[in-house]
């Protein structure tokens, strides 16, 4: 980024000394989902395997934790993709791969015409300006021995964004943007509360005016009354600076609030992805349905009603040795033979809705026969059917104009 690019935005922030406060009362519409919008990040078949070493002197590799195993998705310009799932599903690893805090095992991550997955560390450095991260824990992610001014100013110095003399002024603007007192730049993190620390982390991430922000559980460590402040702040900066978000969280309600598009992960794979309405109102994967039914709902309970709760038994299996076929089958109440034999493809079933399940359907409308048999060239039990040939399925990380209609069991066009 050149200095001339920096200047207008910083003056924009400078023009509005009360920018955070005024943003508080803005009612600009949050980003809508548009499946044709340009993708800023396009991830294809991303994998990360962590080696598991044996104990003893010779530490041989005896297996791999398949933390992320072939995920594909797109993050659209100025929009937000929510990544939800339970602990150990690989959502945080995905975020760390995109920021290259981990090196991927396989796959590609196209960002502004460059593949982040294969860039050398040197070539990656300028890209780090464009992709920044907000961490979960506002206590451990700030150096306790550095002042806020140093913390927020360091990215500016490292990347030579502004001359040294202007760093302080820029830091004060940034603190103002995130709703902190700009005069507090010489304080230490321990003088701030959890919510204020998270604001410092956000200011640091905004310092380089990134195009993409990876927010890894940005509010889950905060008190309830503070969570809403931070979520609103993130929405404000998203609109003000047109930043795309990869929003990683386990709280379905917060993700629904923030993200027009949501991907649900289970054991290293995306099991369902789509726009907000498809995923929340027409969930087709049993895991998504179980997650939705399990999250407590105050307002429902207040009026005496409650959603039907699906009780999943057991825990997530080990990613070292994941179940064959569909990884969710060990906890799934719909599972049949085919689920153990064939891995369900992530199939586009609507304009902007993909799901990976042999029995994809809305809750309580389970089809009697697997919906994927024709596509995979197998019979109902998942054995290879000599009479039929498998269909080649699209590997587009985004959405195609042609999709598989579950009702007619054929491909239809938009």
């Amino acid at each position, binding site marked *: 980024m050149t200095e001339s690019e920096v200047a207008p935005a910083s003056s924009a922030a400078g023009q509005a000394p009360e920018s955070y406060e005024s943003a508080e009362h803005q009612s600009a519409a949050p980003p809508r989902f548009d499946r044709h919008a340009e993708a800023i990040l396009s991830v294809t078949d991303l994998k990360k395997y962590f080696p598991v070493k044996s104990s003893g002197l010779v530490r041989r590799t005896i297996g791999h934790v398949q933390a992320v195993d072939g995920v594909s998705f797109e993050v659209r310009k100025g929009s937000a993709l929510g990544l939800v799932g339970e*602990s150990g599903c690989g959502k945080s690893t995905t975020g760390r791969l995109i920021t290259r805090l981990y090196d991927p095992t396989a796959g590609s991550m196209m960002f502004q015409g460059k593949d982040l997955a294969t860039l050398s560390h040197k070539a990656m450095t300028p890209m780090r300006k464009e992709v920044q991260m907000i961490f979960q824990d506002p206590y451990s992610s700030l150096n306790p021995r550095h002042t806020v001014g140093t913390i927020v100013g360091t990215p500016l110095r490292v990347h030579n964004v502004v001359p040294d003399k202007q760093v302080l002024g820029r830091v004060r603007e940034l603190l103002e943007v995130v709703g902190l007192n700009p005069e507090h730049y010489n304080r230490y993190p321990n003088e701030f509360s959890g919510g204020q620390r998270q604001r410092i982390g956000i200011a640091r991430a905004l310092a380089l005016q990134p195009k993409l922000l990876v927010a890894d559980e940005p509010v889950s460590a905060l008190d309830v009354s*503070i969570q809403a*402040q931070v979520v609103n702040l993130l929405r404000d900066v998203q609109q003000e600076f047109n930043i795309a978000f990869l929003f990683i969280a386990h709280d379905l309600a917060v993700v629904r609030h923030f993200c027009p598009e949501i991907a649900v992960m289970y054991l290293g794979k995306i099991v369902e992805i789509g726009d907000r309405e498809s995923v929340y109102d027409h969930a087709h994967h049993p895991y998504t349905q179980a997650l939705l039914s399990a999250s407590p709902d*105050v307002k429902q309970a207040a009026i005496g009603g409650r959603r039907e709760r*699906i009780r999943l038994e057991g825990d997530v299996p080990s990613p070292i040795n994941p179940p064959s076929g569909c990884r969710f089958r060990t906890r799934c109440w719909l599972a049949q033979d085919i689920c153990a034999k064939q891995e369900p493809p992530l199939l586009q079933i609507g304009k902007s809705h993909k799901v990976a399940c042999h029995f994809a359907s809305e809750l309580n409308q389970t089809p009697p026969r697997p919906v994927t048999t024709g596509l995979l060239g197998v019979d109902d039990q998942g054995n290879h059917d000599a009479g039929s040939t498998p269909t080649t399925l699209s590997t587009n990380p985004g959405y195609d104009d042609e999709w598989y209609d579950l009702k007619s069991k054929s491909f239809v066009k938009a």
Partner: protein
Amino acid sequence: MTQTNGPASDQGAGHLTEPTSRQAGDSGEPFLVVEDLTVRFPTADGLVQAVSGLSYSIEQGSTLGIVGESGSGKSVSSLAVMGLHDAKRTQMSGSIRVGGTEVLGLSNDRMRRIRGREVAMIFQDPLTALHPFYKVGAQISEAYRAHHDVSKAKARAKAIEMLDRVGIPQARTRVDDYPHQFSGGMRQRAMIAMALVNDPSLLIADEPTTALDVTVQAQILDLLQELQKDFNSAIIIITHDLGVVAEMADDVMVMYGGRAVEYGRTREILVHPEMPYTWGLLASVPDVTADPDARLIPIQGNPPSLLRPPSGCAFHPRCPHTGKVPGDLCRTTLPELTRGEHGDEHLKRCHLPDPSAIYEQEILPEIAPDLVEMTVKDEFPAEVGTGLVEDSPSDDALPKER
């Protein structure tokens, strides 16, 4: 550890000899009564006023939810019930009666007979609450043998029985596992097994599901409710999540700055909240059915310092409604816990005149426009937080645990 009992008995309160021989029902008093509890910690910086003038009670077989953010005093007050504060470093006053026995100021030795036997606790993080060097089964049988004079073999059998009861598969083999071999949900189940092994009359659950995933949280909440039915224990569930309270609790107490600010039946509090802090809590949580375009309505500012709490009402620096109170009352005078506008059992600590009208006209349309009509006419079904899944008929269509 001292043995207080003769042969093993699984019956709850009333079977202990000194000091808890009196049955809870003798005086007609609820099982746990906390009166005017004040907890202060002297520190180098000054006196931390962690809990001030807290009173509540809980009956056998019912559930109280305590809601508040960090530093509201919800955990500190419960640790006081367990007698877990170091008397040398804590100033406590007031009264805590467990089954009729005053436990505040009780010697460690006598407290130990109550702790675990009458009152048990499960903690937020089961990994740190279990000892990593001891087998899970050994930790459960130790808790059992602390209160029952039985052989190790019998205690082990009891541990297996309890692990099985809380839904640990293959309890007979898992009893010899170490905590790190358990998953998060199983560890919390083991904690619950340990807490319930002595059949306590009161179970304090401090953020029991905060460290767990949602699907596992649902399992644990269901388990707690099932066990409550079987054991008829009282449960105090401490949480920051109003959703958990809505599903679990009969009564709810909202705490702020070390004081109860609203207290009553869960349904009353959720449908007719009368304290601006409770409104703030309700408004700031998105739910999975809310309008995603609406802005969340946060509570401005930060939680108060307990070293130097604000004058008057502790919430006044963050309260958007202070202007509606005549004079400077909010800043100068601490409001009393007074009866709310909806029923005798509803208490609130607020100066605001006519809070229901403000809630219905200003707050509710913002956070749940679809509920305004119902709230004004009070057309809600009588039951709330029904508890077990079996209670709702439509659940028959859903898979049960296999």
